[in-house]
């Protein structure tokens, strides 16, 4: 039989687009027995259509019971017989051909071989419906590939440019230097994400915009830290998104107990003086008046009345303002919130329980009490000086009592600040330079202005902003060398703490002991026990699991009126605390995918339908039933993979394959109509998302990939857009049954958890790969795979404990060593043109 003749346009390709390539093949002849497979694979990299000729699904056992001596000829047979049917020079399925792949020397085509390893370990190949070798044969093949690749691995720790401080690191360091909380997004452009992380060195490009932003930030932070007696009166407005619920039972974090809603911020007052606090509102429906409590650091400073003639469109705003209030300089918590008028449960048909303001603008039918939209602080008027604040006490470690003492005192302050900011001992000469800034400032406006100017210089310095790594003298491009102690310490602390090394680590680095693997490990273990290692959860875990995407989904207020920003924050916290707990208790990574417990507070527990949790604190809760397992039951994951008005089994399935398994499905081709284009009803019956998906993917070129993705997402479809358990959708009973790509029938989150955990290798390797990219600040390549396999193998022997992965990365050559860089082609040609 001959396949339709078309013209070949494309020559080579990657995974993503290959499925289309099949259409462009020239007269490809197939033996009759492979016809059903060939048909189904023509356009697709991964066919799953059931074939009467397919031998059914086989499993790769986790480890071979008796390791037979690797016989590459046997493995070649397997590849030729089962892989080359599709992965040949003509069909180029999945953008790869194994026709000329030399199985006896996989290392000669390492990137291709690594691709095979990944697909085989995930159990994705050969696809269901294709002929299957014996499980032992597949295992033998993949182990042979891995062994050969590992044995011939090039020892290359990799190379990357130096890193600069990203927003998150910047904020942490400012806190450590000055005890000041800042939001760097006020000044710094956002960090570009590469391979999922915001610290990847080679995309941290320099620009005038960035440099100017660093300068502005330095000037502003120095002034906030020291205070400014001559500060002009200025207004600063903080806003509140409509999605912040301001209901009776919703206190805003930071606001006094006994209040509801409002806004609470950390604001730095430049001087002791008078300030006004004003608030803007969106009025509720049929509300009369409310008391608004204004407090500074928890102390009430004003009680205002809001209300009166309320406009029924709920739009008219009535800003109210306090009298000038005397406030002392420094960073203080300012809260303006409504006094709570009701307590206990109540039922109100007009304003049903749990409904927040979310989406009042768009959805008719949501009622609400007034909502505070903005808080403006203006001042200082009549400033009288600058009182001591926590930050000032930290900065001014000495106070000159006479003119003679000023310079020595300034020297010790400046040296102290620079030592923390530069994350190392500062040299005498450097202090001298900085003292020039002190002198310039002091000459203009006195001692404090001098310190402020020097601080501004320190915060603008490349020693603070960049994490340079010195290259030893006489090293040739391409040569590999170990990092010096200080640089290793810096890598370690930014990996484990997201911040600077502490004294002890610096000492170990300074004395040269840190380069001793035993000391390195001891230091890492010590640092993991320190509370600062929470950054592994809030930075690494959060970026890896894409928790920032939660903010991108706004569940439609009409359908999900109980969703609010507070609930979203709780969901994010749940996952962070869960992850942090894995690190802190050094538990098995596999709990991430299957734990029967989580961490909840009252709000989130109520949302999940779990009783007996009271209060705002998060605590460990054992799931009362089988509904939720590991992070597959976390709202943070379920919401970020939903659309505003419906769940998306596709997005959820894709997330699992991409984030957890490291085998992203190819993206949809253009020209495919969105699911909404499928009618929502059929014969008068409202269709579930599942049913619509089925109709949607009638096209066989869609079904091939969706047959992989959708069953994973459908197994999670009992979770609504907001992660609540449900058994119906649009009034119709849900049907979540599906078949995982390995042939296992699944229909619940617990089933999905089980089927994932059946094959831990792809999960733990994907985790390690991400951990490494984050630790190194560079994307992981195929050259790193042998190291990753080494780390996971050792972790397996340690029960997949978190410390095993983390220490594995820390002890790897990629972490402790570096390859001297070679100028890129562009760089060379550019230099020539100069």
């Amino acid at each position, binding site marked *: 039989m001959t396949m339709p003749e078309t013209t070949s346009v*494309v020559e080579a390709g990657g995974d993503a687009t290959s499925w289309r390539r099949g259409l462009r093949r020239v007269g490809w002849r197939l033996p009759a027995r492979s016809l059903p497979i060939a048909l189904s694979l023509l356009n697709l990299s991964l066919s799953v259509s059931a074939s009467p000729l397919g031998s059914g699904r086989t499993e790769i056992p986790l480890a071979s019971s008796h390791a037979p001596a690797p016989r590459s000829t046997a493995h070649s047979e397997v590849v030729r017989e089962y892989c080359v049917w599709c992965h040949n020079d003509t069909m180029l399925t999945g953008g790869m051909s194994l026709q000329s792949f030399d199985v006896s020397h996989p290392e000669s085509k390492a990137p291709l071989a690594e691709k095979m390893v990944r697909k085989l370990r995930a159990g994705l190949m050969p696809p269901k419906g294709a002929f299957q070798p014996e499980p032992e044969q597949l295992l033998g093949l993949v182990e042979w590939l891995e062994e050969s690749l590992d044995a011939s691995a090039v020892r290359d720790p990799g190379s990357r440019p130096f890193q600069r401080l990203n927003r998150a690191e910047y904020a942490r360091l400012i806190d450590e230097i000055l005890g000041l909380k800042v939001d760097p997004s006020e000044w710094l452009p956002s960090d570009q994400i590469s391979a999922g992380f915001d610290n990847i060195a080679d995309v941290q490009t320099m620009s005038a915009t960035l440099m100017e932003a660093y300068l502005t930030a330095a000037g502003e932070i120095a002034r906030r830290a020291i205070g400014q007696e001559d500060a002009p009166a200025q207004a600063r407005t903080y806003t509140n998104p409509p999605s912040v619920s301001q209901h009776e039972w919703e206190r805003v974090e930071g606001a006094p107990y006994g209040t509801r809603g409002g806004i609470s911020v950390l604001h730095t007052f430049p001087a002791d003086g008078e300030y006004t606090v004003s608030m803007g509102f969106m009025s509720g429906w049929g509300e009369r008046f409310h008391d608004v409590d204004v407090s500074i650091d928890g102390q009430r400073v004003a009680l205002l009345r809001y209300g009166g003639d309320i406009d029924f469109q709920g739009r008219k705003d009535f800003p109210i303002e306090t009298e000038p209030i005397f406030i002392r300089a420094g960073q203080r918590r300012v809260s303006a919130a409504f006094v709570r008028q009701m307590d206990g449960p109540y039922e109100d048909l007009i304003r049903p329980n749990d409904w927040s303001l979310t989406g009042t603008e768009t959805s008719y039918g949501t009622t609400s009490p007034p909502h505070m939209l903005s808080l403006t602080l203006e001042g200082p008027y009549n400033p009288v000086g600058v009182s001591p604040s926590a930050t000032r006490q930290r900065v001014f470690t000495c106070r000159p009592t006479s003119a003679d003492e000023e310079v020595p005192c300034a020297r010790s302050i400046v040296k102290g600040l620079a030592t923390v900011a530069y994350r190392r001992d500062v040299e005498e000469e450097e202090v001298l330079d900085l003292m020039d800034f002190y002198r310039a400032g002091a000459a203009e406006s006195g001692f404090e202005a001098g310190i402020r100017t020097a601080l501004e210089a320190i915060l603008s310095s490349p020693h603070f902003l960049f994490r340079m790594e010195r290259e030893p003298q006489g090293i040739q491009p391409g040569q590999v060398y170990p990092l010096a102690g200080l640089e290793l310490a810096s890598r370690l602390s930014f990996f484990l703490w997201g911040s600077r090394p502490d004294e002890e680590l610096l000492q170990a680095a300074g004395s040269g002991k840190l380069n001793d693997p035993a000391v390195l490990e001891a230091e890492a273990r010590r640092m993991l026990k320190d509370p600062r290692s929470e950054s592994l959860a809030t930075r690494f875990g959060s970026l890896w699991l894409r928790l920032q995407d939660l903010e991108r989904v706004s569940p439609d207020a009409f359908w999900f009126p109980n969703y609010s920003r507070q609930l979203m924050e709780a969901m994010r916290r749940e996952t962070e605390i869960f992850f942090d707990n894995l690190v802190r208790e050094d538990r098995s990574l596999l709990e991430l995918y299957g734990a029967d417990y989580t961490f909840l507070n009252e709000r989130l527990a109520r949302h999940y339908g779990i009783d007996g949790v009271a209060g705002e604190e998060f605590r460990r809760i054992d799931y009362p039933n089988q509904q939720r397992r590991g992070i597959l039951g976390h709202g943070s994951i379920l919401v970020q993979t939903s659309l505003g008005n419906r769940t998306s089994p596709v997005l959820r399935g894709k997330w699992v394959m991409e984030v957890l398994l490291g085998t992203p499905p190819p993206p949809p081709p253009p020209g495919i109509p969105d699911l909404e284009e499928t009618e929502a009803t059929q014969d008068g019956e409202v269709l579930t998302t599942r049913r619509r998906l089925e109709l949607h993917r009638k096209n066989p070129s869609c079904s091939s990939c969706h047959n992989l993705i959708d069953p994973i997402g459908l197994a999670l479809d009992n979770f609504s857009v907001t992660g609540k358990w449900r058994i119906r959708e649009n009034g119709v009973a849900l049907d979540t049954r599906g078949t995982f790509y390995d042939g296992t029938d699944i229909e619940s989150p617990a089933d999905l958890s089980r089927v994932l955990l059946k094959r831990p290798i792809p999960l733990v390797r994907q985790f390690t790969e991400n951990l490494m990219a984050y630790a190194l600040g560079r994307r992981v390549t195929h050259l790193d795979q042998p190291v990753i396999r080494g780390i996971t193998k050792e972790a397996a022997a340690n029960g997949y404990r978190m410390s095993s992965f983390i220490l594995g990365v820390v002890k790897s050559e990629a972490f402790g060593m570096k390859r001297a860089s070679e100028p890129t082609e562009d760089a060379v040609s550019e230099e020539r043109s100069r």
Partner: protein
Amino acid sequence: MNYVTRKTLPRRSFLRAAGATVALPLLDAMTPALRLYGATKSPDRTRLVCIEEVHGVAGCNEWGASRHLFAPAQVGRDFELAADNVLKPLEPWREHLTIVSNTDVRMAEPFAAPEIGGDHFRSSAVFLTQSHPRQTQGSDIHCGVSLDQLHAQRFGDKTVLPSLQLCIESNDKGGGCDYNYSCSYTDCISWSSPNTPLPMIRNPRAAFDMLFGAGGTPQQRAQRRRTQRSILDWVASEVQEMKKHLGAVDRRRVDHYLENVREIERRIQRVEDRNTSGEPRELPDAPPGVPDSFSDHMKLMFDLQILAFQADMTRVISFKTGRDASNRTFPESGSDRAFHPASHHGGKKKGILEFNKICQFRVGQLAYFLRRLEETSDGDSSLLDQALIIWGSPMGDANLHNHRRCPLVLVGGASGRLPGGRHLRAEEGTPMANVFLTLLHEMGHDDLRSFGDSTGEFSL
């Protein structure tokens, strides 16, 4: 402390902008003060604004075109904008519109198999460069020099900032960008060299600081500039010292950094030079951070652009109004559909009309800008007469990810160079780059032989 006495000034407008109500113009109250800059008049003060839309428009689909959702049926002066035409909200300024239909952005098309499908991650870099991005995630990114930067590099020295880059959407989406494309291609429309994308500022407050400097009074701003100057001097020498210990790639990075340091020194110098003729005494308070509402955010960004023009801080602005493949919803458009899914309307009438609602709402934001530009006089004419706004998209029919017959509209008089009030239909296969080449020629780049994949001039 002159601020104390002007409590009713623009702060209120920002307050409202921050709230749910419409943002009021923030610059009315300060016009007299800022007018001082106008004293240094140069003959040509054309303001170039390049605005990118990401998903094309519904009218660039076959059926949408037949309904004239973008390109009007008539060519020339007597074009009619149907009620559902995306440009309908701009009807009041039809005499300032030059609608250019039918041009292609083929540099955004895939050149090799692995590039097929990656259009969303590649297109934005193409819009103003009309060059094909190299498929990579690393530092070897390569595209072209963008139109705005060509102009800024030649004529930008007359203002403090050669150019300004603004955007609306956050770019921290989990995972990063797909298809082995660096997010630089997805997020940056301004390229100062083929491997130097310029970051775009999303926070109105940061943009304000960039334009006017932080500090509450002219004296304080001047003091900050002095400090920054000496810091920059010192930083430059520090870095020279550090360079000795670095590897080849890091040395290059430091060189880039030094170039930036010098650029900022130049900016400070320009501010100082200018201030000899008087600094504006009053500036509005800096706006708060990023508003939740798309519409409020757009208005605030437009306000800042007008402020920048009025104070003549820059004459070149690029503005990215969306992020490809974004799932943001625009309930005010009358559609509750997410942006990206809606753009994949499957070529069906119902879906196209639904997507069109979103397109019209997004394009309609321009009306606010045009009104403000028109109301703001600058010398003998309005800013709108002097402006050249290039609004367009590197995508045509987002449903198919195609880059043919893309939408392009020129707005403003470009200081008398654009007659306006016309619909020009390009011949089949005309590159959008031809229009850009002609515009560059018009703006004084006479010696430019080609731009991107241009094949010749386009008669405007």
